């Protein structure tokens, strides 16, 4: 009996590893007994050896643990039981179960749709092989008052960048706006008669094709644009005009200009929907000079440069080095042209290299041609989706804990039989995962069902990625995750019941738990109210935008496009149009107050002061003399254009411009850009940008060319009027189909993103309310059930219908009122933030919140009263009878 002498440890461990549980102790006891006996006869090492021998000889099949032991079998069996019980519970309380599952499914469907949207937005421009080295060069004006960033540079920027900076592997310029042949043109293949209107033209350097890694169908990316007068067209257009052929080398004409034939240098793949640029035609900049000296003059900023840096280049350091260009070229030009902006430029001008992947979502401060997405919106939507999912989880938690008394007996019994708390937790988690599985399946079904509608609203082409490799594991992970999150609190809550309380039946809703439940209900309704208010405000702003006095009249104005090909016949055509009785006025111009028409930014000075003053940046629109009348703009001072010869140097400015130029009495004053003009009138400010910005300075000069005719009509039968106009047009241009849009429609399209935001808000507000009400319904049903005895007794004692009803509904309505009070500051804060983006906006008024509150209150009221009414009219006997 030596306590410190023991058989070798490792042999013991080996035995414990292999030996069957039930025989292990016994065999080991025998082995120990033998060991100590041996110690008396032999020395320790011999005894040890004998012991080891015995151990090894005990490793016999009959004595060794089964690998698929009863342990495993036990677990498997338990899960089967859990699932069975879970299913029975589900079926027994069909209403509650369907509320839980319904809410979950809706939440999951919403979450999935938003996820697809967010993922699409985040995927823009991420597929470049060298994406981390591709940048767009942006100009930065660090003036604290006038901060802005722009995408345009003078023509020579390409050469300046390429020559001076070895870190830039490639430099390529793009002209994406309506300028010369960029924008839209009449497109005609040589030897064809038909000339078609096409959009999506841009000018590009040959190197741009390589920088943006544009895949080519025909032709070589390295040389498709290297020859002058070449063009690269997209596959879509190639299929349209040259079906099933390689069109490289063929000639086309733009705008019927046969003196400038253009030949096809290559065909590129269509740009994917998640690319920040979407062009169908790239006209080469090789050998292009838009006017003599244009390519080296740093006066005019029309080119957007893209670069690819050498590996290892630090973009921030490079930005510093680029200031060389500012000093050697930009400032130099400013000094040479005597501009007063030299000091400003030296102080405030800087470069920013924008990574290509950031262009779609992070260009808020950059003055760009195309409306970009916004990373803030993406985060906002994601937040909304998470919230709705949260609401659904809250429903689950609330209903599970509320109904806990139903499971109390089961819990108590299981504990008595020997279940540990862990087992119970496992059981309830299994149940919630079961719900999760069902809800996810239904949720996916709902998402698939509503995806087409969502695509319409979000203006995308989203698809559910069934075939991606990560779908199945992701789904499983998601199901488990949701099940765990929703199920963990009820699992712990339910498994904590003391057996004796449970079996005695004294478990009832504790006041502690109902507080938590109330908090969650309040959270649900606050979220819903905030969303409803959000939707209302967005719609209000949309109304405001559509109906505000714009300073011109957008109703009943038809824009006929592509009229530049009329050439000399312009005036005749206009006269023909005016002959139609319903046509009130018509005017030529390329410039209209809606997006997508021409813009021309100039710098103006008071006459003679171009070297002294800071210039005023203003638009200069070339319009014909009927423009102001046609558009319904109002002249405040002076007069409109006339056909006087002297009016060829006349200019009309808007109020803002007059202020900026410090002209007290503008009429009669002279101003200049590179020519001198005399001001004949001041027009009332009108909106020509979207309402996010203020009204900028604008001037108008007289000119008679134009590719758009704005036709002001007054008709009740638009269709037949359009027929007449079309006939007139066809008389002049039989080979060019008429193209027109309506000014008010184009205007509305400028605010597509606002409309879209409004739609999304509405949808999610509705969903949130549905989910919250489902929860409320479940809870109220449950409360009523709990108190059925109480209600019956009260009725017997004489309570009237109203009293009972009041008793049941008041508590819930109180919660909704609290939600409303909480929602007011939150909603106010959030929506002010959104509205602040707009220079011109509606106000947030009290009655918006009142409306939202009323809506939610009444919906909640109806929801709760279903059960309450039922309870109030039921025969009291039913409640008091015991089963």
């Amino acid at each position: 009996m030596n306590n410190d002498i023991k058989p070798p440890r490792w042999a013991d461990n080996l035995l414990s590893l292999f030996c069957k549980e039930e025989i292990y102790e016994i065999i080991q006891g025998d082995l120990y007994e033998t060991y100590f006996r041996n110690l008396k006869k032999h020395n320790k090492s011999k005894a040890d050896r004998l012991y080891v021998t015995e151990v090894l000889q005990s490793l016999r099949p009959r004595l060794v643990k089964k690998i698929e032991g009863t342990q495993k079998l036990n677990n498997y069996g338990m899960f089967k039981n859990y699932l069975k019980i879970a299913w029975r519970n589900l079926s027994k309380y069909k209403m509650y179960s369907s509320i839980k599952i319904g809410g979950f499914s809706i939440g999951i469907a919403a979450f999935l749709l938003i996820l697809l949207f967010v993922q699409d937005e985040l995927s823009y421009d991420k597929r470049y092989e060298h994406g981390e080295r591709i940048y767009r060069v942006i100009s930065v004006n660090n003036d604290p008052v006038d901060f802005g960033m722009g995408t345009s540079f003078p023509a020579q920027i390409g050469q300046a960048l390429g020559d001076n900076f070895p870190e830039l592997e490639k430099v390529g310029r793009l002209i994406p706006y309506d300028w010369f042949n960029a924008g839209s043109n009449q497109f005609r293949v040589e030897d064809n008669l038909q000339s078609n209107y096409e959009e999506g033209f841009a000018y590009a350097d040959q190197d741009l094709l390589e920088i943006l890694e544009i895949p080519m169908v025909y032709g070589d990316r390295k040389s498709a644009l290297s020859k002058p007068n070449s063009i690269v067209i997209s596959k879509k257009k190639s299929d349209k005009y040259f079906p099933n052929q390689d069109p490289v080398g063929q000639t086309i004409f733009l705008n019927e200009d046969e003196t400038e034939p253009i030949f096809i240098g290559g065909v590129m793949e269509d740009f994917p929907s998640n690319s920040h640029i979407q062009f169908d035609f790239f006209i080469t900049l090789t050998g292009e000079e838009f006017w003599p000296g244009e390519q080296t003059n740093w006066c005019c900023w029309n080119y957007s440069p893209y670069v690819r840096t050498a590996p290892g280049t630090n973009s921030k350091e490079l930005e510093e080095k680029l200031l060389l260009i500012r000093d050697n070229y930009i400032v130099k030009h400013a000094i040479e042209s005597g501009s007063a902006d030299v000091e400003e430029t030296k102080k405030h001008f800087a470069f920013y290299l924008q990574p290509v992947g950031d262009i779609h979502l992070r260009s808020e401060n950059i003055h760009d041609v195309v409306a970009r997405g916004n990373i803030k919106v993406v985060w906002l939507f994601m937040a909304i989706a998470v919230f709705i999912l949260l609401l659904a989880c809250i429903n689950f938690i609330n209903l599970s804990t509320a109904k806990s008394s139903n499971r109390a007996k089961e819990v108590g019994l299981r504990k008595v039989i020997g279940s540990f708390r862990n087992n119970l937790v496992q059981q309830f988690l299994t149940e919630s995962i079961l719900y999760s599985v069902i809800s996810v399946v239904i949720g996916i079904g709902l998402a698939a069902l509503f995806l087409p509608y969502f695509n319409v609203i979000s203006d995308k082409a989203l698809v559910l990625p069934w075939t991606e490799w990560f779908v199945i594991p992701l789904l499983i992970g998601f199901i488990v995750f949701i099940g765990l999150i929703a199920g963990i609190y009820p699992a712990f809550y339910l498994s904590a019941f003391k057996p004796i309380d449970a079996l005695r039946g004294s478990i009832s809703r504790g006041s502690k738990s109902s507080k938590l439940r109330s908090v969650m209900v309040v959270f649900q309704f606050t979220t819903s109210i905030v969303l409803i208010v959000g939707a209302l405000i967005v719609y209000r702003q949309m109304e405001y935008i559509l109906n505000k006095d714009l300073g011109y009249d957008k109703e009943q104005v038809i824009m006929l496009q592509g009229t530049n090909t009329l050439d000399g016949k312009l005036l005749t055509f206009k006269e023909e149009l005016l002959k139609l009785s319903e046509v009130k006025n018509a005017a030529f111009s390329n410039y209209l107050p809606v997006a997508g028409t021409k813009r021309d930014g100039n710098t103006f000075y008071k006459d003679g002061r171009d070297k002294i003053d800071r210039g005023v940046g203003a638009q200069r629109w070339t319009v014909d003399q009927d423009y102001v009348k046609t558009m319904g703009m109002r002249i405040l001072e002076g007069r409109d254009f006339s056909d006087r010869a002297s009016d060829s140097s006349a200019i009309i400015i808007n109020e803002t411009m007059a202020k900026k130029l410090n002209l007290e009495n503008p009429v009669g004053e002279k101003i200049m850009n590179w020519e001198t003009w005399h001001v004949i009138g001041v027009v009332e400010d009108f909106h020509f940008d979207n309402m996010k910005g203020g009204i900028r300075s604008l001037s108008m000069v007289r000119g008679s060319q134009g590719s758009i005719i704005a036709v002001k009509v007054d008709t009740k039968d638009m269709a037949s009027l359009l027929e007449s106009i079309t006939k007139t047009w066809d008389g002049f241009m039989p080979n060019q189909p008429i193209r027109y849009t309506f000014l008010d429609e184009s205007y509305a399209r400028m605010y597509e993103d606002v409309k879209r935001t409004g739609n999304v808000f509405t949808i999610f507000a509705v969903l949130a309310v549905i989910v919250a009400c489902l929860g409320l319904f479940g809870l109220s049903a449950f409360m009523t059930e709990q108190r059925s005895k109480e209600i019956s007794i009260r009725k017997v004692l004489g309570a009237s219908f109203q009293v009972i009803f009041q008793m049941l509904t008041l508590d819930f309505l109180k919660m909704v009122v609290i939600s409303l009070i909480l929602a007011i500051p939150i909603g106010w804060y959030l929506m002010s933030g959104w509205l602040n983006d707009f220079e011109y906006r509606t106000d947030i008024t009290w009655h918006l919140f009142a409306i939202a509150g009323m809506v939610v209150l009444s919906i909640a009221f109806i929801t709760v009263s279903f059960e309450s009414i039922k309870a109030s009219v039921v025969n009291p006997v039913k409640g008091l009878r015991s089963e």
Partner: protein
Amino acid sequence: MKDTNLGAFEELVLLAVGSLDENAYGVAIKDALESQSGRAPSIGALHSALYRLEDKGYLKSTEGGATTERGGRRKKFYALSGTGKEALVRAHELRMAFSHKIPGLNFNMD
């Protein structure tokens, strides 16, 4: 099942258990076997056989008797069941029946 095929070793084990009356546990059975036959099985082999015999129903077992010598580990005591006794008797009869048929083999110890 009337499987009375007892292996030789199994039969010996049964006999040893029967001879020990009350105290038939692992080490004791091993000692008994050793003193009678001169050969001692390993503890593992012995327990394996005992396990099998109990499965077949020839032995019953109880547990208990932990001593400090064994480090507090309990013993498993075996005893012959009715069926076990029957099996032993039948086995003995079988041997006798055969041996009587062999001329010149005398089982009587003089």
